């Protein structure tokens, strides 16, 4: 691939073009829809691999930068670029899109072309969100991405899908409107929509606090942080499997990404002043939601709640840096917390995606998500049980799986800051074990629950490939996370530096 090839633009537009092609194919050549969707997603994923292989890990600067004028009058640019924080997320997006396309292969019958196209278009928009260096571009893509998700849940969702889509849409829209206000304010101050300009511009304390809160509402809804998390279980329960996977694996990550890209560097003083709020909310997410997860009777709801708890670790890792630096001045420990949060972001993408796929596999066979409708699934489906236990263990953060890395680093970093915060965070060890393994116990193990379970077919080749790929990713990241940490390190160090210099 030539050096000047606009790879990020390709990441943004190729899936969207692919989506349009698939839509068109749905009319003229319906048999090719699946293969076309797969072709596009695989090509996009293959094209994103150079992002990793040619990434310069020694610099925190944006790489693969593209710049063009968009709306000259308002100084808006079409500018794309990635650093160590966004690049893994783009890879994750494209990887998960491939899996979602395969996972929907023969499950979706109703409006297949539109289904595939929605995911492709969404992949393009999400890539754009992660690559955007211009706040207005970011905002447009951020909002644009709501539409395919809205459609996915609204058309292929469960019986209460309209309620869920409305809740999902209103929540996220409420947040993003505040974000728009903040972006416009920043534009008026900086005279440009460039995120880099926002980050370098001095700001008064009041302005910082207001901007921080505006961004917090926008991103906190997406993460989702307690107490704005209640849309997530509703949306997950009603979403089709692919929708849940993308929702959990990528959409939630945009919230954490936004916190890193906007909140911390643009309002460092406010972040510092409000760190206890963030730490407190994170701990509430970890402990409170952990308990809530235990009593869920719907498998998807359980995993959705556990997502909230796991994302609490990400935010904890991001905002513990101030406390770490205040107590110890240990830059490396702060970086460990933030990188732990980032690893948790990536890992949660794999693990929760895998969990939802597993639930989808069972749902395709029995058409229910109620835990009590299952029991002894391991008897008819041993291969499936292997994968489900593996991903459950990753959800429990067992060492050797990706889930462990993030939690380990965050807890260790948190201990540098405060014993009791670490104590609270460590609750996840047995809360996660309790809700995940209790789920496993009730669903997988035991004698065959009923005659429907007895008739379940084990994984077919397609499902085996999807889960197998995820298993490889989960174990690889758990056994050898250094490559990922290495990619992030320069950017995280830079971010911590930005977050600790006063902008007043």
């Amino acid at each position, binding site marked *: 691939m030539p050096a000047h090839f606009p790879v990020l633009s390709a990441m943004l537009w190729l899936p969207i073009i692919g989506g349009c092609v698939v839509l068109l194919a749905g009319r003229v050549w319906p048999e090719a829809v699946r293969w076309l969707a797969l072709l596009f997603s695989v090509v996009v994923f293959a094209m994103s691999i150079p992002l990793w292989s040619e990434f310069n890990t020694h610099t925190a600067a944006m790489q693969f930068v593209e710049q063009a004028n968009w709306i000259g009058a308002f100084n808006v640019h079409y500018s794309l670029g990635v650093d160590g924080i966004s690049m893994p997320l783009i890879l994750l997006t494209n990887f998960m899109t491939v899996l979602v396309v395969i996972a929907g292969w023969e499950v979706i019958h109703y409006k297949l072309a539109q289904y595939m196209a929605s995911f492709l278009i969404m992949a393009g928009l999400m890539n754009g969100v992660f690559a955007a260096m211009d706040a207005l571009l970011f905002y447009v893509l951020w909002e644009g991405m709501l539409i395919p998700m809205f459609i996915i849940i609204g058309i292929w969702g469960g019986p209460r899908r309209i309620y869920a889509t409305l809740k999902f849409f209103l929540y996220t829209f409420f947040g993003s409107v505040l974000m728009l206000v903040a972006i416009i304010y920043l534009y008026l101050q900086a005279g440009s929509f460039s995120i880099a300009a926002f980050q370098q511009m001095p700001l008064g304390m009041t302005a910082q606090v207001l901007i921080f809160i505006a961004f917090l509402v926008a991103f906190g809804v997406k993460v989702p942080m307690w107490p704005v998390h*209640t849309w997530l279980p509703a949306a997950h329960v009603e979403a089709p499997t692919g929708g849940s996977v993308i929702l959990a694996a990528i959409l939630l990550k945009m919230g954490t990404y936004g916190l890193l890209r906007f909140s911390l560097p643009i309002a460092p003083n406010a972040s510092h002043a409000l760190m206890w709020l963030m730490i407190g909310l994170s701990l509430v997410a970890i402990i409170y939601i952990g308990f809530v997860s235990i*009593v869920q009777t719907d498998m998807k709801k359980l995993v959705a709640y556990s997502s909230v708890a796991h994302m609490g670790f990400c935010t904890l890792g991001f905002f513990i840096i101030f406390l770490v630096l205040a107590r110890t001045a*240990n830059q*490396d420990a702060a970086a460990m917390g933030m990188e732990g949060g980032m690893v948790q972001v990536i890992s949660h993408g794999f693990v929760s995606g895998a969990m939802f796929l597993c639930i989808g596999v069972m749902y395709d066979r029995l058409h229910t998500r109620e835990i009590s409708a299952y029991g002894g699934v391991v008897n008819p489906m041993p291969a499936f049980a292997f994968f489900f236990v593996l991903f459950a263990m990753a959800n429990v953060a067992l060492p050797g799986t990706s889930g*462990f890395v993030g939690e*380990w680093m965050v807890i260790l970093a948190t*201990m540098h800051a405060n014993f009791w915060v*670490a104590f609270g965070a460590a609750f996840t060890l*047995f809360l996660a074990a309790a809700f995940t393994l209790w789920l496993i116990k009730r669903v997988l193990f035991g004698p065959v629950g009923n005659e429907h379970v007895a008739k379940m077919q084990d994984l077919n080749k397609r499902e085996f490939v999807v889960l197998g790929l995820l298993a490889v990713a989960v174990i690889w990241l758990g056994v050898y996370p250094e490559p990922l940490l290495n990619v992030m*390190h320069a950017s995280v160090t830079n971010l911590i530096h930005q977050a600790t210099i006063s902008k007043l």
Partner: protein
Amino acid sequence: MSAFLPMLLVAIVLAPLTAAIIVGCGMRFIPRRAAHVLTILAVALSTALSAWVLWQMVFAGMGSYDINLYDWGSIGNIQFNIGFMIDRLSVLMMTVVSFVSLMVHIYTIGYMAEDPGYKRFFSYISLFTFSMLILVMANNFLLLFIGWELVGLVSYLLIGFWYTRPTAIRAGLKAFIVNRVGDFGFILGIALVLAYSGSLDYSQVFAHASALAGQHLELFSGLVWSVPTVICILLFVGAVGKSAQVPLHVWLPDSMEGPTPISALIHAATMVTAGIFMVARLSPLFELSDTALSMVMIVGAITALFLGLVGIVQNDIKRVIAYSTISQLGYMATALGASAYAAGIFHLMTHAFFKALLFLGSGSVIMAMHHDQDMRNMGGLRKYMPITYFTFLAGSLALIAFPGFAGFFSKDTIIDAVHDSQRTGAVFAYWCVLLGTFVTGLYTFRCVFMTFHGKERFVVEHDAGHDGRKELAPGHLPHAPRESPWVVTVPLILLGIASVVIGWLTIQPLLYGDFFGTSIYVAPGHHVMQKLAEEFHGAGAMMVASVTTPTLWLALAGLGVAWFFYVFKPAWPAVLARWFRPLYLLLLHKFYFDEAYALFVEAGSRALGRMLWIGGDGAVIDGVLVDGSARAVGWFSRILRRGQTGYLYHYAFVMIIGLCVLLGWLLLR
């Protein structure tokens, strides 16, 4: 040699893993025979290589070895490595682990012969061997924790091996979660180590251990703790979970739901001793805190005595041995608490052999009884299965510390060490472990007598069909009990021999020679072992001297009582149980730990979860915040709606009047 060693160490670790993966992934394709051949070869390789390294260390003067294999992750100066530390402590553990594992592998061929999960089982135990090996070989806290959790995982999988049994899967879940409670403390301890010493490598941490001693931590306002005390207590919480000490012991008896080879390997010989090993491994840290060591000792002593008592009233043969395991782990912990790490590890080793033997022996009995584990249905098995009987007897004698047997040397040393210890709580601990010997004698031989002696309480139904397929009531057998096949008896015999001689052979070098060298650190002033060393004049002399100690006589008293009640007057125990009914019930219900946990932890957390879900998420967040704001908007709209009559002319009027007002305002302003 040193270029060759890393590969060799990796081979020790990876051989079982490779076998486990091949057997596990190829479960559908490879024959049963290949499954056990492959895994046994792999574990045999590990055993042989471990033994070779041990030989090199002890006799060829090889020094200890610390090597990082690869960089797991690094953030600036904080390095997480995957690496091995091979010194005499770890190499001893490696040898014991791989040897016992090998025995169990061989035994499994016979025990699991008819099980449909045969290949899966071999895959699991090989995976376990791998996990346990990385646990003991780790050179840093990260790998220790990884191994620590992986053995927990395999334990979970193996307890729930018969996944259609509700009790088994429940026990597995319980084991995992209780262990996780321990890990809760463990990971916090590790985090504190990193926070205060800046590294997780043993060598670095130990080198800077003394710097930790002076530091303090204010946990509650006004209450200042010394950092090593907090670290060690937290780490020990991990050991409490893994090594089944009070109050986190509840999972171990339930874990007997797993297949018997597992009980022998994981829940007796190796995994449960990980906590003991960990404390010994981290002795440079624990030596910094007298408080933490006192706690270790007291917890260990309580476990040793009181859970031994529970063993007296159990009727399930495996549960009796499980409680004895908990009790013996308590002995080891007590030894650690008295700074007698060498004695603790020594007991760990002897215990590994004789407890594995006892479990495998009980497994042999269970096979003969057609998987009935209730001792009330046994009796008089001595004449049917002599090999099992004699090996079991050897193990039992070792367990009650009969002079000459392996357990005698280790346990007596522990009791003496505790006796000599000056630490807070040592007197209490001494009485606990001393009385514990009587209890040990009692429950051990109660088990022996109920199983192998006395009247036959089972019924042989010859007409029940010779294939034994028909479901029989407990205590009813299709044919007379028979001795087990050679794959079962050979490990029994090998372990039996080990149980008899291992203490005699190794006490001198292990305890009083300088075997452990620098791998165990004892602070000056804590040297209980030195005092014992002055009194030690060889294994034979120790045996002779034991006649004058209360230990032997208490154990024999226990044995005698057991004989009296279970051979001589078998009707009396029931009478005694009636007389001392509250005490009996207390023991029968294992001090009501399970009930309390079920009530407070299990039901409590579920109730809390439901409250937070329905009350917090449902009522407050969704009800008041979300729906509340929606309702507020709706209420406001309803008021506004009154203006929207829907009549065309009303809108026209409003427009006109608005125009008037606007014009008027423009004119008058």
